Structure formats: C-alpha cells, structure tokens
C-alpha cells in the first residue's frame, strides 16, 4: 500500500517536473537576493552561507509542500483516496517520502549555487548530504501534515508558512549549525550533537504526524 502511494506521488511529481524547476529557480533567486542584504563582503557571506542556504530551502519548501496537495483538491480526489480500503497513514507516508525526496533534490541543487555565490565550498560532501537529508526530513513530516490542512482553505498561501515556520525552529537551527560547522570547520567536534538533535526531531515528528494524519483528513 505504501509503495503504491509512493509510486503515485512520484509519478505525479515527474509529470509536473516543470514545477520543481520553477521552485529551484525561486530558491536560487532567494540565495542571490540574500547576498544583497549583506553587501559584497566575501568573508561575511561565507560566514552566513549555511543560514542563507537553509532559509532559501525553507522558503522554497512551502511552495513544494503546498503544491503537493494540489492534485488531491481537484474533483475531491482526496475523498476518493480515503474511500479506498487502505490506511490513511500509507497515504501520508507516501506523500511525505515523496516530498522529502523532492526537498532533498532541491537542497542538493541549491548547494552549488551557495558555493558559487558565497564562496562556501567544502570537501566533506557526505556529511553535507547527511545534513540535507535529515534537515529536509524534518521539513517534510510536519510540512505535509500542515499542507493537508491548509490546502483545503482559502488562505493557504499564508497559513502554511504561519503554522510551519515556528514549529521548524529546532530543525532549522540544527541544520544551519551543522552545515556551518561543515563549511567553516568544526574545531570543538560539535557536529555530532547537532546531527543527534536533528535525528531526534525527525524521529518525533515522523511518528507523531503519521499518527495524527488520520484525524486530519477524516470526514
């Protein structure tokens, strides 16, 4: 059931890949704009590069997450899905995993933009990949749940970020800290504790949101 739900989401994403491209361009444009907030100071830009990367990713993620329920809202497709003899949790995890993959791709695509614009290169690519995978997992789980609620409302563009941003503070903080330690060096060996915090956040919200999703979509 989960694989069927996941396959459906991935197929949908593949067929609307121009949307993914547009979100990437949006994120890259945000990264470009952040540098104007600092000015042409290479050292400062490099110091703040991790923060900018994650803020750009966070802003673009609200577009991806909101869009992921677009198809379900047309012709009351969500109700049709819920009528299937399946667990709503499978629908939730299918969509969340698909969103997670998409956000990870987006994050990986934004890294070269960050490296070029802010001169923030690193050779520890595996660590960076791990942080992006864990950080986007933290965005995807509560983000998909909130998108399921707000997609049905008039003010969805405002409400999704309003609900998601305060919640995501620990994941954002840990991702930014961990990414900056990778880019700027980690003399005190703090990387492990931030990755631990991020994993704990992911674990809590991946389980909690899965449990609550059934109540959110019930009629």
């Amino acid at each position: 059931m989960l694989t069927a739900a996941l396959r459906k989401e991935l197929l949908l994403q593949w067929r609307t890949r121009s949307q993914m491209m547009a979100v990437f361009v949006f994120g890259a444009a945000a990264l470009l704009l952040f540098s104007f907030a600092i000015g042409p100071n290479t050292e400062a830009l490099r110091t703040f590069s991790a923060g900018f990367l994650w803020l750009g990713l966070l802003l673009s993620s609200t577009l991806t997450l909101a869009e992921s329920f677009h198809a379900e809202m047309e012709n009351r497709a969500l109700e049709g899905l819920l009528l299937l003899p399946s667990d709503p949790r499978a629908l939730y995890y299918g969509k969340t995993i698909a969103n997670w993959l998409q956000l990870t791709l987006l994050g990986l695509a934004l890294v070269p933009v960050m490296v070029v614009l802010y001169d923030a290169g690193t050779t520890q690519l595996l660590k960076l990949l791990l942080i992006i995978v864990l950080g986007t997992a933290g965005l995807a789980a509560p983000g998909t749940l909130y998108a399921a609620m707000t997609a049905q409302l008039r003010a969805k563009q405002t409400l999704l970020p309003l609900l998601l941003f305060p919640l995501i503070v620990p994941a954002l903080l840990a991702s930014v800290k961990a990414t900056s330690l990778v880019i700027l060096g980690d003399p005190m060996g703090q990387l492990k504790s931030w990755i631990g915090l991020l994993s704990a956040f992911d674990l809590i919200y991946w389980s909690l949101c899965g449990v609550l999703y059934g109540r959110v979509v019930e009629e």
Partner: protein
Amino acid sequence: MEMPRVSTSRTPYVFLAIGAACLLAGSYIGLFVAPAEQYMGNVQRIMYVHVPTAWNWMIAVLFAFGCAIAFLFKSDVKWDARLEAGLEVGALLAFLLCCQGAIWAKPTWGVWWDWDPRLTTTAVLLFSLLGILALRRFVEDPIKRAIWSSVATIIASIDLPIVYMSVKWWNSLHQQQSTPQTVSSQFHLPLRLNAFGVLFLMIGFLMLRSRIAGYRLQQELAAPPVLTGEEAGELA
C-alpha cells in the same frame, strides 16, 4: 455531535475579582513596601509581574495541550471551547511575557532582546499560538476546526522542549529561574500575592472565554431553522 452546555454561573467574576485584588495588593507591596534590590535597583521590581506571568503562562499552555488531547479522545466540543480559551489566554500571556522581558532586559543587559532559551521559546510558542488562532478563523466547519486546532496544538506543544533544548545549546545568558527559594524572603509576599492574582485572573478569563466559544459553537451546531410554508413562499 452533542451541543455544548454553557454555564451561566457567576463564578468567573468571583475569580476575576479575587485575582484583581491580589494583583493590586501584591503590586502595591512590590512597588512601595518591598526594598529595592541591591544590584539592579528598582528595575528588579518588574519581577513581581514577570515571574507570576511566566508561571501562569506555563499553566495556560499545559491547559491548552490537555484540552487538545481530551478533544481528540472524547470528541466532545466543550473541549474545543476550552481549547480556544486556552490558546487565546496563552497567547496573551506569552505576549506579555515577551514585553516584560524586553523592558527588563534593556536596562539590565543593555539590549531589548537576547537569544536566551526561555525568551526564544516563549516567542516561538507565541507565533505558534497565533498561527493556530489564525487557522481557526479560516475553517468554517466547527468539527474540522476543532480537530485541526487540537492536532496543531499537540504538535506545537511537543515542539516546546525541543526548541528550549536547541536554543540552550545554541546560546545562553539568562538568570536562573526565580522561585521563592532563590529570592530573599522580603520579596516573597508580593511575588506570591501576584502569582495568585494572575492565576485567578487567568482562571476567570479561561472560564469566560470558553463560555463565549461555547455560545458560538451552539449557534454553529444548531440545526438550520425549519421554515413554514408561508416563509418558504416569501423566500422563493
């Protein structure tokens, strides 16, 4: 769905009166009777409202969390009315807490805001509560509204300790929490009076606010009026 029963007792007004009296007495003693603190001087007197607000804010948040859990298990809309009251009172206290903290921090630390774990956690929760209250405004179906805001309240409350931990690791420079044990005995009386004052005011507000929410739910859940033949004819 069962209709919520709304009580019309005078109890909340009694709580409000006791709370206001305690708060007035405590603030009078705190401002004019208790001695000024040795190092911080008169600025420290804001502690007499700040610390009681902080204690009661935590109670309000726990109350909202409890109501959210109770609604999801019992599906009784009276818990939704209480949740609405808890969310609004919690948001009000969080806002007051941030303002008092900023007023106190400027003369003491020289900045309005610092990224202390408790201050930051309060601010994060304030925005979470405002987000949930905004969500409630946009959901017209009362049952959906109740379920969604319960879910969002549970998610936001569980976030609190994680935010606290993460900000603590990130940066810290706040005093130890004040309890009657950590402050000199001369400060006890105004602190306790104000704590009970804010507590009683909060209980009064919670009761009155859930009463208002109960009336609104009664209206929303009421069956549509049955039209007589004549009225229907007029409408047509």
